[in-house]
């Protein structure tokens, strides 16, 4: 799936200083589930799933999600941050195969 790691972030169209802003994010990822063989035994392999989401604002971590295979495929995550200054919001998604995907958005006030 060559689309793995495609990210989209959404923020409100108008942000004022001091607003607590809600961010919506989606990342394309299979979030592989446990497979079982014909006998019902778990297939041992390194399943590929996102196990960490790191949200940083102005370089400081404001939220992290430690995630498991119980999170849906093409996972959606939503979180908030307090918009104090203009600057970058970055969301990094890390998976168990060493994949690192990120999306960024510039926070501006209007």
């Amino acid at each position, binding site marked *: 799936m060559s689309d793995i*790691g495609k990210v989209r972030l959404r923020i409100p169209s108008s942000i004022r200083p001091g607003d607590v802003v*809600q961010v*919506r994010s989606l990342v394309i990822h299979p*979030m592989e589930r446990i497979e079982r063989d014909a006998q019902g035994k778990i297939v041992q392999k390194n399943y590929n799933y996102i196990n960490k989401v790191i949200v940083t604002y102005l370089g400081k971590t*404001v939220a992290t999600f*430690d995630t498991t295979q*119980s*999170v*849906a495929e093409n996972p959606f995550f939503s*979180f908030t941050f307090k918009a104090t200054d203009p600057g970058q919001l970055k969301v990094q998604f890390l998976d168990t195969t060493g994949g690192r995907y990120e999306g960024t958005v510039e926070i501006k006030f209007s």
Partner: protein
Amino acid sequence: MTDNHPVTRRAVLGTLGALGVAAAGGGFVAGAPGKAHAQALGQNESVQDAMKRLFGDKPIKDGAAIIKLDLPLIAENGAVVPISVSVDSPMTATSYVKHIYVVADKNRIPIVTRVTLAPEAGRAFMGANIRLGETGDVRAIVEQSDGTLLQVKREVKVTVGGCGG
């Protein structure tokens, strides 16, 4: 909401370095990011074992007064179930929500996610799409900065189709 210019980059992983390996009470270690770790958050286990692993014998109070758990009562399918958790908290440096856990009692991997928040988050809030294996309780467990644990839970019925799916 406005769309914002997603930067879609698939970075080749270098060394990530220490990315906050946090040890929570109960001997849980966040797996090194980028590799499935023997002590990964998600384990095949019963919900009782998962709760014991996360919280040991620490008392968990009823959080109905401050935790708002948003979940459908009936999920059209177990593959994608939207959840959001909102906690009434000042989110100041001295009083904030440190973690929000989501646990699905009937899942083979009951621990769904652990969210770690800084006061700069502004509000104690998380949203995600989760998987549910079957009808069962879903819990939101909140750990406050002073260590207090609170919980709310609700049953979600997972729909089975009539039309083969």
